[in-house]
């Protein structure tokens, strides 16, 4: 019997990927310099529509119809322009879930990053991807059924390929990096601790000496 009761203690997370791809327009008919696509999809290109009811991309107000809504995949907006602005991606969930929509914020990135000494080859697209996970905490039973439906394949690819840049390999690599960083930080911490201690000791000696010298002078 499906009820709207929330399942306590149940936490389900779904990985998603969003962001934009921008390519420089080589023939400039207007003052638009780039063609860009902002999107929301699964990291492995799989279907995410089974738990998403609607996606709204809110663009800059200078765009016509700047609120672009999609009821089904692909959740993408392709436009041309010259400016970088904040895009709000609002994800609505099926009414059965009783969940409020959630917004993602990111900057539309058109221009390649400043890499001194290197120049960005013309025509190479600029990728600005973000990985995140939607955490569904205490979903209703109905929603739970929807969420646990077969996604048709692993949600995160094992290796990165093409535009699926977020992979399990990448995850492990990042974990490793974070761990080495943690070790480094701990090391530095000890270093600073020692510095503080030696400084304090020297301060004590210096103060005593100065006091003695002052009283004698």
């Amino acid at each position: 019997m499906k009820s709207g009761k929330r399942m306590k203690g149940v936490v389900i997370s779904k990985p998603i990927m969003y962001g934009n791809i921008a390519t420089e327009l080589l023939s400039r008919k207007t003052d638009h310099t780039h063609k860009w696509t902002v999107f929301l999809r699964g990291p492995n290109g799989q279907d995410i529509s089974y738990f998403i009811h609607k996606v709204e991309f809110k663009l800059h107000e200078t765009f016509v119809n700047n609120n672009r809504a999609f009821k089904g995949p692909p959740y993408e907006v392709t436009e041309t322009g010259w400016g970088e602005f904040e895009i709000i991606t609002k994800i609505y969930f099926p009414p059965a879930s009783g969940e409020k929509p959630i917004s993602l914020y990111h900057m539309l990135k058109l221009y390649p990053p400043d890499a001194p000494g290197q120049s960005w080859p013309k025509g190479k697209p600029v990728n600005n991807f973000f990985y995140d996970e939607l955490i569904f905490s205490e979903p209703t039973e109905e929603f739970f059924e929807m969420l646990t439906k077969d996604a048709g394949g692993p949600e995160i690819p094992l290796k990165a390929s093409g535009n699926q840049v977020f992979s399990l390999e990448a995850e492990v690599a990042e974990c490793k990096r974070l761990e080495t960083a943690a070790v480094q930080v701990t090391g530095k911490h000890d270093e600073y601790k020692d510095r503080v201690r030696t400084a304090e000791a020297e301060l004590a000696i210096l103060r005593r000496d100065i006091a003695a010298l002052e009283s004698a002078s």
Partner: protein
Amino acid sequence: MAQKPRQKAPGMSRELTSLYLENQSIPVVLEQFQAKPKFGTKAERWVWRAFKSSARDDGLALHHWAKANEEYTDYYYARFNAKTNPYQYTDEEYEKCIEPLDKGWSRTETDYLLHMCRQFDLRFIIIHDRYYSHTDCPNSGIESNRTLEDLKDRYYAIGRALTQYRAGEDSRDPEDVPLQTTNKLADDLALLRFDKDKELERKKYLEALFRRTKEEIEEEELLTAEARRIEANERRLVHEREVLLQSHAMFEEATGSAVGPPIKVQYAQTVDPSLASPATTPTAEATPKGRKGAAADGPGDPASARTIKRQKSTHGTPAPLRVRAGSVASRAQGSPGVKVRSPSVSDMVRKSASPSRSIAPSIKSEQGNLSPVFGDPTFGTEIHTVKPAVVEVETAEVGTIVVPQRDARLGPGVFLRSDKLHPIPKNKLDAVKQFMSQLALNSPNTIWPRPVMATPAVCDRFDSLQSIIIPLLDFKKTADKLETEVQVLRARKRMLVNDIGEDKAEEILNRLPPVSTSTAGARHQRKGSSASSRRKSRDSIS
């Protein structure tokens, strides 16, 4: 000033305009003639008169102007002729209570002293000055070296003894005496207190104070200023010190100085959804929980030493191997020094009613993790260890489920995992971001630090890293501050040495006792050294 109508005829000046327009009145102050005031009474007659004063005992008549019709009673200022009355004792009283007091005083001398007191109105300075040169000074029976304090001492001793004796002699019925009177004795005696030694010392100090040299005065001023400054900053310094120590403690906690007995957990391929799979393996012990609690506790708030303890107690349920759904098979690799415990959950899974489905990573609740606190990378193959801190949650269907603490505190609803990182205080935001970027950990183009790939495993590690960077930055700041102070003091010392001369300076420094170093003791050292220098200066006075 009265308002002038604004008809400005061109070519005319302001003054002319005002004169020309007749309805203006010009204010002028007239000389008022002051008449002599009339009183209505006749003048009085004053007389040059002689007068006597009751304050005088020689009958001298001086003269002054006085009103003729006024009666003269007494000289106006005679009321100010206050007289003291030093003690008068009878022979009997003397023998009974005064003589036993001090054998060094003879009857003659005591009488002489009191005579002087009466003569000079208890002005001991004069009494002392004229003690031996007064005409009434006895020729014999008098000690020759009476100091001012001696005289005073003797006088007050007499006073006490007499008061005591006389109060005791009171023939009134003790029952009758109202309460006031009984206390009066204590009050009177208190008034006559005189401690010769204390007086001598007090005078010695006053003398020393008066005779301070200019250098000593300056030194004392410097010391008091320094003491005042220390006290003003004391609260702040103490607080800073505590903050540092606590962040240090927190830091040690967060970096997992103790690794609990880990539990091998591997992410299951087939998970039974109906068993609400967030429950996986049980917790390690209270320590990781405590640590997680500490790390989860607000934006790296170092003042959470107490919170650490609190967390430990609330989530303090330790190891009982409460194993639930989420099938777990152990894959046998361990990081060195890690125990292996393979919970047999697979039977749990088999017991479940609904058919299992291959869900793959969709339900990624909490799997085993890396070093004490972290979530495992999804499908993490090589590394397993301990469960993160968990919390028991009661549910109807499955009894108690064990859920990682980080997710247990979510309410119902949808969230983004990257939003669930601990917020950093604004003033540290940039510093932390920069630090992270230097280590190439930060996702670019974001306002606040976030990892590139926000999976639970990564987020755990990122969060904990964040929480140890903050105390590190604090430490760095303190280290820098202290080191600049060291530089400043070094320069000052060099200057002083130059002023004094190198040899003499070296001699002085060699004579000093060594400074014992202790980390928390720096402040005490400072106090110690200033106290010793103060002592030195005091010695030079006396």
